[in-house]
């Protein structure tokens, strides 16, 4: 297929070819308004798809793989919604290389073997060009060998523990050092914190994060850690640790409690008379986004600080647009947390990488990915690092009774992702 003469694009007809022409014409009309739009005809399928992916003359198929049933569905639904919004917006702009994005959605069912099974199905049977998916570390670990074996390409949205850098994954959330270090520096500098109490749910992310936090507190800040404790996922009895906190009187409670345990933890904290608005002690978390506050209740967590890269209340044009579009599509009562925003970046980063590479081939997309910039991201400008993570700012927000965060601090520059931090191992 070569570039067709302009006159031919006006022919219309019922044939597949005619439809294709029509689509091209439509894309051209659109291009009057958005100069960036690319035409599929300029990128013949045979050239942009040499490895047999599900890319046709007018569509590219990608996979969405999240839990929409089971315990994780509450968290992952926001990611699915954000990804679908991004896909719709990209399609409205003419798609990727002139091809509409179609998606096949699979349910990981909060079950790691199911994630592995479905990812294999998406890659082997559906030949999807890329996958937006996973949430928990466990699900990512389960699908990782599958993606590496079948050379798939995954956009993973969650803030996570780091210690990983797969050629087949782009990590659109923050890795642990990005999220932790700036927050600890801030609390030590601005709040004069001297003593910390670390606690978390018992699995890899809180443990690794607290390991990094402890090293930073003790070795780099020269402050003290008074205690470090872990509770099983789903644990709901936090009274003993709350009593210990009252006895030891740390300046900062550093909490990485996840999932349903959050609800019990913050309610019990409040019931025990620890008023977070007084900041004695101050509570700093890296695991509570706006989504979790919906379950916890704004009045139970009011005054706590959270450290991550995105809050729904961010005041910039990209974000105002994004929040508006999200609520239009999914309803006014929706809230948008850090991971939801990171999930929204996935399709956009993919589009940018494919168009930079001029190809859907995974190897070429991988090669093109580092250095991809996105100045339309709701969180602001982001850039893909050589190590497949994103350069991003770190922000501290203060929880308010209405369930939103008030942004009180943000790093001046983008923080470099460092999944294998020296001195923190």
């Amino acid at each position: 297929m070569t570039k067709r003469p302009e006159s031919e694009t006006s022919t219309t007809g019922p044939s597949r070819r005619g439809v294709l022409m029509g689509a091209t014409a439509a894309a051209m009309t659109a291009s009057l308004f958005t100069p960036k739009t690319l035409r599929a005809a300029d990128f013949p399928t045979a050239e942009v798809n040499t490895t047999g992916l599900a890319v046709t003359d007018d569509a590219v198929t990608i996979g969405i793989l999240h839990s929409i049933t089971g315990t994780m569905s509450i968290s992952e639904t926001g990611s699915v919604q954000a990804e679908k919004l991004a896909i719709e917006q990209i399609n409205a702009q003419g798609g990727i290389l002139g091809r509409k994005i179609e998606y096949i959605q699979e349910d990981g069912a909060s079950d790691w073997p199911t994630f592995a099974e479905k990812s294999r199905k998406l890659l082997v049977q559906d030949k999807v060009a890329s996958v937006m998916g996973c949430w928990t570390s466990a699900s990512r670990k389960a699908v990782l060998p599958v993606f590496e074996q079948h050379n798939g390409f995954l956009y993973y949205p969650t803030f996570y523990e780091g210690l990983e850098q797969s050629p087949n994954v782009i990590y659109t959330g923050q890795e642990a050092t990005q999220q932790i270090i700036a927050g600890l520096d801030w609390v030590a500098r601005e709040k004069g914190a001297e003593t910390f109490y670390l606690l978390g749910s018992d699995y890899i992310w809180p443990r690794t994060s607290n390991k990094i936090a402890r090293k930073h507190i003790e070795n780099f800040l020269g402050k003290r850690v008074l205690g470090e404790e872990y509770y099983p996922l789903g644990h709901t009895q936090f009274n003993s640790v709350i009593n210990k906190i009252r006895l030891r009187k740390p300046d900062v409670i550093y909490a990485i409690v996840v999932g349903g345990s959050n609800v019990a933890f913050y309610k019990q904290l409040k019931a025990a008379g620890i008023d977070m608005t007084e900041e004695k002690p101050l509570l700093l978390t890296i695991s509570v986004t706006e989504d979790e506050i919906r379950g916890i209740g704004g009045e139970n967590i009011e005054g706590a600080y959270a450290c991550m890269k995105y809050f729904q209340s961010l005041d910039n044009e990209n974000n105002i647009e994004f929040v508006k579009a999200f609520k239009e599509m999914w309803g006014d009562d929706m809230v948008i947390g850090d991971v939801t925003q990171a999930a929204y970046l996935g399709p956009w980063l993919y589009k940018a990488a494919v168009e930079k590479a001029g190809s859907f081939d995974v190897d070429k997309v991988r090669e093109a990915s580092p250095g991809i910039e996105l100045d339309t991201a709701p969180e602001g400008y982001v850039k893909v690092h050589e190590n497949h993570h994103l350069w991003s700012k770190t922000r501290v927000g203060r929880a308010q009774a209405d369930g939103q965060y008030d942004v009180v601090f943000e790093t001046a520059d983008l923080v470099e992702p460092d999944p294998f931090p020296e001195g923190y191992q």
Partner: protein
Amino acid sequence: MSDVSTPDPRQSRLFTASELLGYLVLAAVIFIVLPSVLDAFRLNLFGKYLSYAFVAIGLVLCWGVGGILSLGQGVFFGLGGYCMAMFLKLEASTPENTSIQSTPGIPDFMDWNQLTELPWWWVPFNSLTFTVVAIVVVPVILAFIIGFAMFTRRVGGVYFAIITQAIAAIATILIIGQQGFTGGVNGITDLRTLMGWDIRPDSAKTALYFVNGVLLFAVLFVAHMILKSKAGRLMIAIRDREDRVRFSGYNVANFKIFVFCAGAAFAAIGGAMFTLQVGFISPTLVGIVPSIYMVIFCAVGGRLSLLGAVYGALLVNWAQTTFSESFPELWLLAMGALFIAVVMAFPLGLAGLYDDYLKRHIDRLLAPVDRMMMRRAARKTSPKAPAPTAQAAE
């Protein structure tokens, strides 16, 4: 005892014609039909389903025949799977592969949890022989301890089911809590080779499918032998009238412990095959929910039938995959409807349907074969007697 002294000749033979036909059909399905109609990816999925069939076979023995409902088979499945995974993980964690770690040469999750050397109880899993033995022996020892503690105290029925469920919960919490030693919630992932043989490509998955099939038949055969043995018949007696068997002088507890251990061993073999075929193991396969799923496979297939259990595991898992691919939002409801339908409409599962509608016709068709087999068996045991005699020697 009158049953034992004059056994039904059909029962005392190792296989009746219709049983033999059933095994042949299953063998044809597993070794010929599925591999020829499915691509490598789907075949691997069926291999995974078949690894659950091991558990279901064990449950037919424990629950259907022995009347011991265990809601904790996931523990044994998981132990087998973890033993296999430990060996594979150690093989994958060469110092070269793990050079970015603080302590190269140990599994990655240990390094993340600040462990600096391999725990002593991981060390023997460097040996494949030890691992293969451990896959069966470790779960059997646990089953023996549980069985000994429960059955000698005459704990049974629903109490036993609740205790096994509690054990499943404890096992999950233990695995998740000790993540430095077990990989925690993530489980043991990123398994690569078995004695240098890459288990990840399609060719290896297909080979493992056939290994799995052969092992399944070996387990079916052993289970069949147990059913046909005196112990098997005593188990049925215990299930139906435990007191009478006890008053007849049998130690009921020993039989129960035996059948519970057998079920655990089968489940463990299935778990090891699961790990090999799926490429990882995690606590989500150990807990209460998967254990109950396993009981459902058995119930759908028919808890009195070994073959039914295999078909049940295949059908339920296949339905689960298909529903969830077609209706990602609705599949759980569809599965629920399927289970309710099975329990309400055919409480003895697929095997019950077969017995009610098909078995008569097939038996009639097979009657001449059956008679021939019976005559031959009779000639072999007592050449002078014209009719099949009771095998009193048994």
